[in-house]
């Protein structure tokens, strides 16, 4: 058991280390760190800091996917919460602005959960509704403009630091610890996995699968709202057209790279985080490399393919067979 668990994360961690090593090759100063205005400064910090929104999204997404669901609306929820927070920050104070933004995220999650758990609509269709409508709602809030704000407490969430560590990274770690404590410190994680593994059997065994599904979408909505607040704080403004655009796909990719199956069941929070870091380490590496931007997506696709091939059990057994045949 212990052995298989350790083996499970091995491919992802090796992939991350290899990508970081490649980053070091394309950019010799990659691991250089210094303090700048009380904040750690360096490419490695960029990877953590820029990866924070996707890491938060994948934290919620991994639970949703564990129940055999998917949430396509997280990018749009980011746009909504960012728009709300930015619109209210200067006029109504930062605590209220953030509370309303997070509340909106909970509400979005509740809506998705209601469609999936209560009405029984397929998750990909149910969340597609909010993916499309949500961005429109965000644009209505901002009236299509980029709403800027100056409230220093809000800006701190994006640009500040705690003991040198950027605040977004601290928030991600905090959310990881909270989520981990809740789902792994209790039987909740097991119940979520059971729901995803076989909903009908779980139901018969007495698990409240509806409540489970509702809860994971609500949590996913909250994580997305938090990511939206961070993204807005980062650029001191809410850009409803672009905030979180396509990030739902990065979040799903992070979860999949982290070894969680789209068919539900077993999941790993930490490996989803590693997945998010792999994606961002790759993005930052591409930016540092100086290659023409036309190569960005091709390089990204190639790396993702290799990481997923590393995890393929069939390829591993085929490789092992080949190895035995040679020796």
């Amino acid at each position: 058991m212990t052995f298989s668990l350790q083996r499970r994360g091995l491919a992802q961690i090796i992939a991350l280390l290899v990508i970081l090593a490649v980053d070091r090759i394309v950019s010799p100063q990659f691991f250089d760190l210094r303090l700048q205005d009380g904040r750690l400064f360096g490419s490695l910090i960029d990877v953590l800091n820029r990866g924070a929104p996707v890491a938060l999204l994948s934290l919620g997404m991994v639970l949703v996917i564990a129940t055999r669901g998917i949430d396509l609306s997280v990018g749009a929820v980011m746009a909504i919460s960012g728009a709300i927070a930015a619109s209210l920050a200067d006029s109504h104070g930062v605590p209220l602005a953030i509370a309303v933004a997070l509340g909106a995220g909970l509400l979005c999650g509740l809506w998705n959960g209601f469609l999936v758990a209560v009405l029984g609509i397929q998750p990909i269709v149910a969340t597609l509704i909010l993916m499309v409508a949500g961005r429109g709602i965000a644009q209505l809030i901002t009236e299509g403009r980029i709403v800027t704000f100056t409230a220093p407490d809000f800006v701190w969430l994006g640009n500040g630091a705690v003991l040198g560590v950027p605040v977004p990274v601290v928030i991600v770690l905090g959310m990881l610890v909270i989520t981990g404590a809740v789902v792994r410190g209790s039987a909740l994680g097991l119940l979520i996995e059971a729901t995803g593994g076989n909903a009908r059997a779980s139901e018969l065994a007495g698990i409240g699968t509806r409540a489970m599904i509702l809860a994971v979408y609500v949590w996913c909505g909250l994580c997305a709202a938090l990511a939206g607040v961070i993204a807005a704080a980062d650029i001191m403004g809410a850009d409803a057209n672009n905030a979180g655009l396509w990030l739902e796909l990065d979040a799903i990719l992070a979860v999949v790279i982290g070894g969680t199956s789209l068919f539900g069941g077993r999941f790993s929070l930490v490996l989803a985080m590693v997945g998010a870091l792999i994606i961002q380490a790759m993005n930052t590496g591409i930016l540092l490399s100086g290659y023409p931007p036309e190569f960005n997506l091709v390089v990204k696709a190639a790396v993702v393919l290799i990481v997923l091939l590393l995890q393929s059990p069939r390829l591993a057994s085929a490789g092992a067979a080949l190895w035995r045949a040679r020796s």
Partner: protein
Amino acid sequence: MTIKALLAATALAATTLSLPAVAAELTVGFSQIGSESGWRAAETTVSKSEAAKRKVNLKIADAQQKQENQIKAIRSFVAQGVDAIFLAPVVSSGWDAVLKEAKEAKIPVVLLDRDIDPSGKELYLTAVTSDSVQEGAVAGEWLAKTVGAKACNVVELQGTVGASVAANRKKGFDSVVAKHANLKVVRSQTGDFTRAKGKEVMESFIKAEGGGKSLCAVYAHNDDMMVGAIQAMKEAGLKPGKDVLTVSIDAVPDIFKAMAAGEANATVELTPNMAGPALDAIIAYKGKGTTPPKWIQTESKLYTAADDPMKVYDSKKGLGY
């Protein structure tokens, strides 16, 4: 006073009166793309005010980024018998059939901001667009003039890969850089026209160029990416506008705020006033029968800190950017 003179005077009065009266009766249908960006919103606002200035009745149809809605809007404008149709085409192809209908109804069509495929060349009266190659060149010329003979390492934040405006703004800037041996584009990467990506890409540029000390200027294909890049420079302890020169394109309000704070140096305007020249062309065409040139190019005006940025900011902030 003889009756003849009286008649002549009335006739004269009638003709002089009828000139503005004709203009007042002009009805123009405008098929706008939708609210894809702040600039687009500003274009709609300016179109309304320019039409009001010329006493033209402007009917705006919002297509919500869909060509089928634009085609429907044009058909309904033809059915209503408007005097002219303005079209900001969301894509460049697929307009031939509907524009032929407008032509058969003898309603002139003016393209705003974007062009269509050459096959439709005979189907519209004129196109009012900016020259995005020229915008890049104006930005480059400003930089060349400002740095003089000093060697200057430039980093470039490109627009979305594949967007024609990004390719053109790059081409225009590169054409100036090629003429000045002291200017060198050391890094160029896409920031997708957004603030967040502009900031992220600039962060990596700063690290890749040894903390940004060797950088002399940043060129961004739009102001939003520059606003992000300015934040990245500030967080890295650099002084944008002083240590590192900035030049970008669009002239959105927020870049003027940065300029007033001394953190941005120059921007090239993509004017939201495309409807003004288009209305003038239509009024002349309808009134005197003057056929306008096939392409009316708008001015790519350069703004720097010398142009009272706060005043420009105030005049632009209400436009819906």
